[in-house]
């Protein structure tokens, strides 16, 4: 309980310290990005994959931001993700708060999987999917982002959007499944000759 509230506090603190910008600019820019990907009759499956890739690229950079900010803000008790389940706390109470200004509830499904429940979707405020794009995973960038972040800190994960406001659901549910630790591999160039 105390740990939970300390994460909330850290999230609030990080949010209050980080420079901000208007959410409508963010939402509309994301809309334009998706629109651009969809523009040339690309099948939704490919768009979904591109969105995930974009999310991963963002996630890899966000994790640096996250680590540097949280270690500055709470040098005595850094938010370490020692176990897979711990990461849910870090994402829902600190990460999402820090970057999107929202928090999520966590439902632990099993030892190796949990679901993040967001009451609203900051990416899709003004979005209605046409029936021809009903299989588009509009918020896939969020899944990619979480995946990118967790993979950067050594967790192999599979992240899927289960529910989304654009599909008519009340909120967003993101399922995160752990697939074990990532093996550290040296890049080819760094091998001993």
């Amino acid at each position: 309980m105390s740990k939970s509230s300390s994460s909330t506090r850290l999230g609030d603190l990080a949010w209050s310290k980080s420079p901000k910008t208007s959410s409508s600019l963010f939402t509309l820019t994301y809309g334009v990005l998706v629109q651009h990907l969809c523009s040339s009759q690309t099948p939704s499956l490919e768009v979904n994959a591109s969105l995930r890739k974009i999310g991963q690229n963002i996630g890899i950079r966000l994790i640096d931001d996250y680590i540097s900010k949280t270690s500055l803000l709470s040098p005595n008790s850094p938010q370490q993700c020692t176990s897979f389940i711990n990461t849910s706390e870090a994402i829902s109470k600190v990460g999402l708060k820090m970057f999107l200004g929202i928090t999520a509830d966590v439902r632990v499904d099993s030892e190796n999987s949990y679901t993040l429940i967001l009451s609203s979707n900051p990416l899709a405020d003004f979005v209605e999917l046409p029936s021809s794009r009903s299989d588009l995973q509009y918020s896939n960038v969020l899944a990619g982002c979480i995946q990118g972040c967790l993979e950067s800190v050594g967790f192999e994960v599979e992240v899927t959007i289960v529910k989304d406001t654009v599909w008519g659901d009340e909120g967003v549910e993101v399922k995160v499944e752990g697939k074990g630790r990532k093996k550290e591999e040296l890049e080819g160039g760094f091998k001993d000759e």
Partner: protein
Amino acid sequence: MLQSSSTSRSSHPLDRPLHRRAVTGSEVSLSAFVLLFGELVQLHQTTSSSVPEFEAALSKSGWEVGSRTYLMNANVKVREIRVLGVLQFLSSNVWMSLFNKKADSLEKSLNSESEYMIHDSNPLPTIFCEVPKTLGSFNPSSFVAGIIKGALETAGFGCEVTAHRVEEGEGNRTVFLVNFCREVMEREEAFA
């Protein structure tokens, strides 16, 4: 049955408050936006073959953002019909809603009747943006130029907008040159 229909209705965009203030915050962190914008820029860079094409693609993306922002903020009762009115609306209301500040200044060009200049220091896309030499004259602010064009054209003022970087002591200032098309100036004269 009833339950499910009410659920889907409540999440329809038209039934939600337009301004997020009521639902979640009205802000997101700058890092989230900058990284997203970076991805958008990269996407356009890979699909365009020259700098003008790249800028045009980015400006087109901005157009969509500007057009929607205008519609979100426009006063439904009183529509701006004069050039100066719409420019003031743009540099205060639209700017405020997107960048949480007003544009630094709005000036009329001395050279031409149809030209106006909007000055802004450190426009959002140029923060953390380093243009490599290979891209030469590429200006990431063409996204903002697109936003201006989108907002003005949606308001019924056809125009061309270009972004120019001004090298000046500290910081960087960007001038957005708005050139209204002939029809707009003729209409303006009719009002005068």
